[in-house]
């Protein structure tokens, strides 16, 4: 049996990887995927902490967060599609119309 703390550690590791990927990757889809990794890492943290404290509510919360992540994914992909249609690129450097 793998102790719960391992899952918690894994979730923190995943979250950190998500942050790193968000900052070093320069194309929108990958940045967006990094955010999704972070959200799911947080979900894993919720589940492992709920398991550790022996209550079910943490797992119920995850249901809601998954739904929120799906809604965000849909709107995010739609926005990325919109900018792709306009500029024909998803490189983040190309989006510099406003500055200052």
């Amino acid at each position, binding site marked *: 049996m*793998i*102790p719960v703390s391992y899952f918690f550690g894994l979730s923190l590791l995943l979250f950190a990887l998500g942050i790193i990927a968000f900052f070093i990757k320069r194309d929108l889809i990958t940045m967006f995927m990094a955010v999704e990794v972070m959200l799911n890492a947080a979900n894993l943290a919720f589940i492992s902490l709920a398991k550790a404290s022996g209550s079910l509510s943490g797992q*119920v919360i995850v*249901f809601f967060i*998954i*739904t929120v992540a*799906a*809604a965000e*994914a*849909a709107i995010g*992909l*739609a926005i990325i*599609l919109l900018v792709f*249609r306009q500029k024909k690129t998803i490189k983040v450097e190309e989006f510099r119309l406003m500055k200052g």
Partner: protein
Amino acid sequence: MIEIFLVFVVFGLLGLVLIFMNRFLGPSRSNPNKEKPFECGSPYLQKDINPFPIKFYLVAFLFLLFDIEVAFFFPWALVFKEMKVTALVVMAAYLSVLVIGFVYAWKKGAFEWE
């Protein structure tokens, strides 16, 4: 416990070593023909992989949304027996919101392929 961890470490490192061993040990002799996407000798017909038509993305979003919403049916089905009519009313309200979203997508032409 520590054994499992060690196994992961050892095999992880082994994997890394194997991946990079190729690059270090293998000879690297390149020529223009080798750099082509297909090394089969005959000229290729198109240059890159074509991007998917945008229509697929639209269907994918809609699928994503309506698919995830169904996740809420499972806990509902578990408590349905205890909650009786309340459960039905709640699910009816929930579904009607989804149906309105569906009607909106339909009327906006999101399901039309051409």
